[in-house]
């Protein structure tokens, strides 16, 4: 499997798009840190970009890559090679390439300009978000039969996680304002990887004072080692679950 991953990675990192993506992220992060005198603010602006751009690029690029590799996947499946090896070498190859792009584009400048715990949380959270969206893109690719549909599903998932979900949660919270919703909102945020990553970083930035009682509940939970640990486990589950279901479907799929 290692050998196959090597060639998948080799093919992707020569792709101009991935190079451009890395440079764009690098430019964004460096300029945020340069122009904001307060690294706290720089980090916050960066967080907002990361939570929109990175999921979008990861999910679209992975879906397109899967379908562009379709004939290659066919070729591999005619070799003495199991479906598992084929699926996971593609997945891990993509994770490695996009993960490297993120680490070079965002991780490196963040750790240089702001080498603190909050910087590290941002990098780790962003990395897990990248992997989650790659995993979701693979699931979207194996349940559909053509590229256009797969991209449609991938975009819908992105739209749901990044935009729709927050709107829905907000609606629930407003309508239920008479009840104590602090615990509930904690659960809501755990059900969306984007929110989870966002809150993890926000808690490190000491802005929870602006968020009222909910902020206090969050602060209590996410600042404890236990809370941070649970959040990262949840984020990991967001990677593992779609990959696993994607594999189950791929292993029975007609190529």
């Amino acid at each position, binding site marked *: 499997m290692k050998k*196959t991953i090597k060639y998948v990675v080799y*093919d992707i990192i020569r792709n101009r798009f991935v190079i451009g993506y890395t440079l764009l992220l690098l430019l964004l992060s460096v300029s945020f840190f340069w122009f904001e005198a307060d690294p706290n603010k720089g980090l916050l602006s960066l967080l907002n970009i990361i939570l929109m751009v990175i999921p979008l690029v990861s999910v679209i690029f992975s879906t397109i890559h899967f379908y562009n590799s379709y*004939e*290659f996947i066919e070729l591999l499946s*005619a070799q*003495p090679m199991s479906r598992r090896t084929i699926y996971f070498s593609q997945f891990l190859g993509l994770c490695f390439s996009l993960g490297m792009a993120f680490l070079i584009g965002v991780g490196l400048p963040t750790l240089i300009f702001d080498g603190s715990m909050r910087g590290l949380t941002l990098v780790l959270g962003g990395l897990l978000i990248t992997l989650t969206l790659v995993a979701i893109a693979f699931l979207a690719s194996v349940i559909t039969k053509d590229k256009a549909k797969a991209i449609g599903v991938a975009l819908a998932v992105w739209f749901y996680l990044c935009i729709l979900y927050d709107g829905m949660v907000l609606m629930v919270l407003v309508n239920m304002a008479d009840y104590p919703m602090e615990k509930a909102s904690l659960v809501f945020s755990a059900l969306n990887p984007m929110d989870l990553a966002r809150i993890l970083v926000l808690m490190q930035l000491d802005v929870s004072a602006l968020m009222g009682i909910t902020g206090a509940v969050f602060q209590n939970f996410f600042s404890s080692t236990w809370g941070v640990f649970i959040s990262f486990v949840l984020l990991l589950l967001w990677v593992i679950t779609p990959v696993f279901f994607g594999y189950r479907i791929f292993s*029975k799929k007609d190529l």
Partner: protein
Amino acid sequence: MMIKFENINKSFGKSEVLQNISLNLEMGQSVAILGPNGSGKTTLIKSLLGMVIPDSGQILFDGKNIKNEFAYRSEIGYMPQIGNYPPNLKIAQLIDMMKDIRKGKKEGIIIDEEIIELFKLKKMYQKPLGTLSGGTKQKVSAALAFLFDPKVLILDEPTAGLDPLASELLKSKILEEKRKGKLIIITSHIMADLEELSTHVVYMQEGKLKIFKELEDLRLEYGEERLGKIIALLMKNNFSKIIA
């Protein structure tokens, strides 16, 4: 060694692409799979390769059911109809990768680079696959199919995109492998090629296996020398049956 299809059924949605196909293929045979477009030829080949999973029935390769297996494919060389490869990899890297994959999968593996020599692919080793023409990709596919001296060769439209010289070179290579007693399975729409290369004919129509016979027997039966004529007669017969 032989390949045995037992009551294979496969449907995509409502269309039944393979209907109760049973077929025994043996070493030393060179089998031409014929039939109109959409008759299930490629699906049959893909089910042998494990790329399409039949709804029912089983395929035995050397006596073993191929379901959920993959090691058996080290005995198969496959040349697809359209070869698309990772565009940024170079030919040399692709070939190295295939060698990497096959290494250790079979004892005493033999590397046969004759096709690479014949098609002078070494000169283009450093070119990325994305920049190659359709014909050159076809040559790369052929090189990969023959590279590991497999016992079974599956060739899907092998000569379709090749220039006349390359086509002749490939055919002579196929004949050479046939003389070694390998099992060769070919689909093509070029009757003259099949006439030259095959000993047996499988004729499929609408997902059903209509005929599996030796080419010589068919010639006697229909009183025709040329395969093209025989197939035309076959198609006409079936067609008139449908009308009647």
